[in-house]
């Protein structure tokens, strides 16, 4: 039994980076303020002092070059871990992500692979200015050649980050900043991996299968407990990876319950919930006992913070949505 530390999610990011930097000289952390400053969220705190400026690199402010240079480094066999300070600033690097990061392997017929992990704090709920709260994971899930990971616990964060950095393919690693410091969890001190592409059952139940990920996992579990008191027993599946999706786990949970709700903070239209609904429609139509509920952000630009509590699915909205799925009678 290895020793553990009681870590927040952002400390688990740091711990994960630390382990991989120590284990593999080819790992390089790079981005704005990741060095001396330790990252604006402290995700890289202390790494510069330990590993130096060639491995924990303060770069100029230039998202396209941060991603693009990482593409070149990764093509040469290094394992760069570029950080974009906020996911809302990924767009200047978006051309690099979709035109090159996602396609380098395919374009070179497998000669090159890009073992790079692009990290960004993402999602809302922290009273941030514009462009600091968006949830655009569907952009990246839509892009073949990428893997997209969204952890929801410190344990998973460390393990999924290690798995991402060791993965031969490029990974978009989105860190829900609302829960960077919301709670702590015992995390092993030694390095370990949590496999990419596997969902985790956070609560078992027979009545409604609820699919979620990232920061929405906690209000979803809260809603599930409230509903349990009413006799509605939810199974809560934390997807952890949204590309590739754990289709088997999703279909399996649905087949046992016949009812489903999907919760995410991203806008509804063409979001992950639509994809999950389509999977269930195709794979498990005959098990379906109620319309599949989507409890999501609205199809509006992410609001300034005075209204963000209305925008983000709350435990109450989630509870209402799940109740719809549970109580539907044909």
């Amino acid at each position, binding site marked *: 039994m290895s020793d553990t530390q009681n870590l927040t999610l952002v400390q688990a990011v740091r711990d994960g980076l630390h382990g991989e930097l120590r284990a593999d000289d080819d790992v390089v952390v790079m981005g704005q303020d990741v060095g001396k400053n330790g990252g604006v969220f402290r995700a890289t705190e202390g790494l510069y002092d330990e590993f130096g400026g060639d491995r924990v690199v303060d770069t100029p402010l230039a998202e396209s070059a941060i991603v693009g240079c990482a593409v*070149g480094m990764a*093509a040469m066999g290094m394992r760069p871990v570029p950080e974009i300070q906020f996911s809302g600033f990924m767009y200047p690097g978006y*051309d*690099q992500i979709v035109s090159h990061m996602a396609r380098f392997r395919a374009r*070179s*017929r497998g*000669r090159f692979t890009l073992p790079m992990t692009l990290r960004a704090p993402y999602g809302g709920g922290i009273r941030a200015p514009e462009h600091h709260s968006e949830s655009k994971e569907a952009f990246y899930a839509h892009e*073949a050649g990428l893997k997209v990971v969204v952890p929801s616990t410190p344990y998973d964060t460390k393990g999924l980050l290690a798995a991402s950095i060791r993965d031969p393919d490029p990974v978009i690693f989105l860190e829900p900043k609302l829960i960077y410091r919301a709670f702590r969890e015992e995390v092993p001190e030694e390095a370990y991996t949590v496999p990419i592409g596997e969902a985790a059952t956070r609560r078992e139940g027979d009545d409604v299968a609820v699919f979620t990920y990232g920061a929405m996992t906690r209000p979803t579990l809260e809603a599930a407990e409230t509903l349990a008191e009413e006799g509605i027993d939810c199974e809560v599946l934390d997807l952890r990876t949204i590309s590739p999706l754990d289709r088997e786990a999703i279909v399996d949970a649905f087949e046992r319950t016949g009812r489903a709700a999907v919760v995410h903070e991203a806008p509804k239209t063409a979001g992950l919930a639509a994809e999950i609904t389509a999977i269930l429609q195709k794979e498990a139509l005959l098990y379906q006992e109620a319309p599949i509920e989507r409890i999501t952000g609205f199809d509006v630009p992410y609001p300034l913070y005075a209204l963000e509590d209305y925008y983000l699915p709350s435990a109450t909205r989630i509870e209402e949505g799940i109740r719809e799925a549970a109580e539907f009678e044909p």
Partner: protein
Amino acid sequence: MNVFDRAYDDPVRVLDEDGTVVGDVPDLETEELVGIYRDMRLARHFDGRAVSLQRQGRMGTYPPLSGQEGAQVGSATALAEDDWIVPSYREHGAAFVHGLPPERTLLYWMGHGDGARAPDDVNVFPIAVPIASHVPHAVGGAWASKLRGDDDVFVCYFGDGATSEGDFHEACNFAGVFDTPTVLFCNNNQWAISVPRERQTRSATLAQKAEAYGFDGVQVDGMDPLAVYAVTEAAVEKARDPPDGRLRPTLIEAVQYRFGAHTTADDPTVYRDDDEVERWRRKDPIPRLERYLRDEGILDDDRVDAIEAEVEERVADAIEAAESAPRPEPRALFEHAYAELPPELEAQYAELTALREERGDAAFLGE
């Protein structure tokens, strides 16, 4: 004088338009000089045949290089085998010099993805079509080379239009800040499709843009292969082993002209006049070097004829090889997306395979 100590608008020159020596001839063996001539002839002949194949419907859209052989062959000749070329989409000639078999280039423009894959022992990145977005890759690759203690230099080719893009500036900035062994090689061919060089920037030269990033910029007559060789050799040497006080990166502006269209889908008569083309044709790098080599007694009619025959045969062989390549299997759609084929992609491939087996390829190809 060190080539990097010149005024930005004082291009390095070795041969004038008549092949007369006007600068320092680089120290090359006779056969190396002939090699530059032969490779330019190869690129020119390849180009003519490629355009013709497109016109005959045997190839898709193709970006011609004629006029730019001096810059491409001169620069690529200055590289060591382990150095890397990061091309845009027009550097077929440079890629051949660095070892890419010409049939790969044909395959790519004939729509076969395999054409973008250089053989394992040929250090050429896949073609990049978006403008300037590959420049950061070259800086990143060179950065990796430096961090790992390797000795490899990365030469990145791009056009004058690329210097207007943010990626070019971000990449130059990183190259300077991290002092990466990168040679940023601008093929200033005067036109970004229909937009002239004067509309691209108000800078008097493109070379001077290096000043802003703290490293050397130098202009070279891009239609003078020996001058290009000399400048690139100096830049590569500096990238590998910089003297005190100089950064490794260099921005080379090779001033030249694209004789033909931007691509076979473009009609340059709409935006430029024949006089201009004629003026630049007088600077053609091939007769220029030929004249010099004949004057030096290195080439004669027999040798020129032999080179012509050799080049024609090589291109004919490449065309035959490319045209006889079988249509790629649809599995290629799926198998290179990820290192390990995800189950969902396996399922999608199985669906396609089943339908293909049931209905035949005719159902897909309209044949």
